[in-house]
């Protein structure tokens, strides 16, 4: 543990840990804590339809007001935020996992399998994701947050696959891989003992990007009404406020807080990814 802190301190002094990374992780931590600690101080039933007086502005009994279905916005926000984050994380894990495997296969084995993976991922990268996701999500009868994460993950692997493939190709040519090969390591040993550790930073970096992209897609699908409508999520809150024309009727406390929360999540992820680039690539830090 001491070594960990010493390492951290050295990295900080060398300027590899930028303020961007600290602020980004700080915002994300705050958002996560909000969802973890909040339930201890609120009554979950207040977030159910018809639990409180509808259309109350913020203040008094209701910190953030209530929506026109009689739900307390503050309680709703506390339960919706972790659900949205959860979908992003699940989709991120699956997408990055799939992308890593495909990228490793493409980079390690080359040939026609590489060509197929490359053409498919390059093509899918240019497609408007929402179009394909709408077809998939629209045909699922029972939607849940987990299924939603799966749907979004189906288009969340291309960027990781591309990055991993490029890294594998470049690392394979390095002298230490050559040495390992001469020492009699087989292709799998080389892949897992020599190549994998060196592409970890890239995998972590694309994980942050994939989570961000997944949350974006999830909220987009939910705003179209394709989400699990009975679950409390930030995207569904936006959807219901749209359905009740909350913007035109001036209920800013209905759509405002979820937007702020979503913005905080995205800003946190964005700063983390920029900051992490500088951490993983010391050449950038010196600028």
């Amino acid at each position, binding site marked *: 543990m001491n070594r960990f802190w010493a390492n951290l301190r050295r990295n900080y002094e060398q300027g590899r840990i930028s303020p961007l990374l600290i602020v980004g992780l700080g915002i994300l931590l705050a958002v996560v804590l909000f969802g973890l600690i909040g339930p201890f101080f609120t009554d979950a039933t207040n977030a159910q339809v018809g639990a409180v007086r509808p259309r109350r502005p913020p203040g008094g009994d209701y910190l953030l007001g209530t929506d026109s279905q009689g739900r307390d916005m503050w309680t709703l926000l506390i339960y919706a935020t972790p659900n949205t984050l959860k979908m992003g994380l699940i989709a991120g894990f699956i997408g990055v996992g799939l992308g890593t495997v495909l990228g490793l296969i493409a980079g390690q084995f080359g040939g026609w399998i590489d060509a197929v993976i490359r*053409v498919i991922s390059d093509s899918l990268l240019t*497609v408007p994701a929402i179009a394909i996701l709408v*077809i998939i999500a629209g045909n699922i009868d029972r939607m849940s947050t987990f299924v939603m994460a799966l749907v979004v993950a189906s288009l969340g692997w291309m960027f990781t696959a591309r990055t991993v493939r490029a890294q594998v190709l470049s690392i394979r040519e390095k002298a230490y891989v050559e040495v390992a090969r001469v020492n009699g390591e087989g292709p799998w040993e080389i892949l897992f003992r020599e190549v994998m550790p060196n592409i970890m930073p890239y995998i972590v970096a694309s994980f942050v990007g994939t989570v961000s992209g997944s949350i974006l897609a999830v909220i987009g699908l939910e705003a*179209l009404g394709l989400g699990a409508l009975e679950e409390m999520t930030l995207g569904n809150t936006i959807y219901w406020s749209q359905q009740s024309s909350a913007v035109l009727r001036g209920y800013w406390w209905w759509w405002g807080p979820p*937007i702020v929360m979503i913005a905080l999540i995205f*800003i946190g992820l964005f700063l983390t990814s920029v900051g992490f680039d500088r951490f993983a690539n010391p050449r950038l830090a010196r600028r």
Partner: protein
Amino acid sequence: MSKEIVRYIATRFGQLLVVVFVAVSVNFIIPRLLPGDPVQTALARLQTSGGAANVDIQAVSAAYRARYGLDAPVWQQYINYWGDLLTLDLGVSFANFPEKVSTMIGNALPWSVTLLAVATLIAFSVGSLLGARLAWPTAGRGIKSLVPFLMVLTSIPFYLLAIILIYFFAVVLKWFPPAGGVDTTRIMRLDWATTYDILEHAFLPCMAIVLGNVGFWALGMRSQMVNVLGEDYITFAEAKGLHPRRIFVWYGMRNALLAQVTALALSLGSVVSGAVLVEVIFNYPGLGSLLYVAIRGQDYFVIQGVVLMLIVSLAVLLFIVDLLYPLLDPRIRR
């Protein structure tokens, strides 16, 4: 034409074919993975949701079964599906029964294309200029303080910016209309009043897309400029005694823009995804709203048609960008 450029075009064309093929196949396969046939399922859902009480479900269903040969083997259906698409037959709407999906898309398409093209062009050029200005070696504190602001703008999804814009500029200040493409009472004519009306309605949606994208282009351009300005040929140009502004614009910006165009091609997909939602929020009469209404009403063929339209037209557009790219970058032309 050299061998390389033929190969380049062939690869890009191959990519276009893959996208179209995948899009059509996904559109065909996914609804058929479910038990029952797609039309039956769609109509059953339509009935339960009460979306189209005035439609004679049985008649429509029978007509579809005969028309699309849904009793035929799957491979036959697949071939028929391609045949229909190639003759631009996308089926008819359930909700507005005899109306053809292709007509509905044809009506919506100009709205979407114009909005998206104008907004993307503005965001791209303003963003790139701003980014170049930010990379200028003696950029002042004032302009540098824009960076965090741009970072915040890029990270917020732009359909959420749209909600905020509507609230402030249409609900509170009432400067712009909150929704729609034109005044509902307007008879479309080619005159000033109509043009003004259209522009007035398009302003906020356009602003939402521009604001949501400008940061992306500015930040991208800035980092590209920083890279380019570190190149040897810039030092060489300085050593020759060229004017700094000339070096900056003709040696720096011109090269940095190349990467920006590549990024444009790669990001158009997500811009379109976002623009679909902006249209929904503004109830703008484009493809996005058409898709939204179709999803709400379980209007099966309309959803399919719009989705195909989005994917295929974007793929064609990207192919055109790819064809223009050698004109910008002589290294590919060789």
